[in-house]
């Protein structure tokens, strides 16, 4: 087992824990802002995991996907925050 294989297993477990925690927060809420925030975290973890996979396997096929996600990740959370009603508790 090479060094990078061990690293990929450990990093995969860490990314998985972070993603599961974000999904838990999306389900539990309590407010829609928490859900928007957790969705953002899930997206950031997905971008980091894509990059880590590229660095371990030494290719650059999904670098463009990272670029597009970094450009357009802002739209969802800002529209939720901008158009949220004052008494929305759900």
């Amino acid at each position, binding site marked *: 087992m090479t060094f990078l294989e061990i690293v990929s297993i450990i990093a995969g477990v860490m990314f998985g824990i972070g993603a599961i925690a974000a999904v838990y927060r999306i389900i539990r809420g309590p407010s829609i802002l928490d859900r928007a925030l957790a969705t953002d975290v899930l997206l950031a973890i997905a971008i980091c995991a894509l990059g880590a996979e590229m660095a371990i396997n030494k290719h650059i096929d999904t670098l*463009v996907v990272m670029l597009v996600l970094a450009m357009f990740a802002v739209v969802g959370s800002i529209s939720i925050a901008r158009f949220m009603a004052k008494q929305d508790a759900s």
Partner: protein
Amino acid sequence: MSAAEIAVGLLILVSGFLSMAAGIGIIRFPDVLTRLHAATKPQVLGLATVLAAIVVQVPTWGVLTTAVLIMTFQLLTQPMTAHMLGRAAYRSDHVRRDLLIEDDLDRDIAEHDQTGH
């Protein structure tokens, strides 16, 4: 096992640790503003370390410029998101006011209401 391989492994481990810390943080922290603090870690530093790992692994000009572009867009857009979410949380009372040490925005809003503009 070369020096570049060790550097790549360490950078990826830092990114994974930050992602895990963000996940644990948004579960454990009590309100939107503190969760916001935990959530912004992997979005900037985690991405930066992963991009550095890619550049170390595939050192060409195309990869370097694309990595700089990704980091620039992320640094432009993520503070906007955090700012808008924090503002919406404050205005819609999703903030634990008993946990705040100092509340500058409350004072500004009171002053603004007094002058009546």
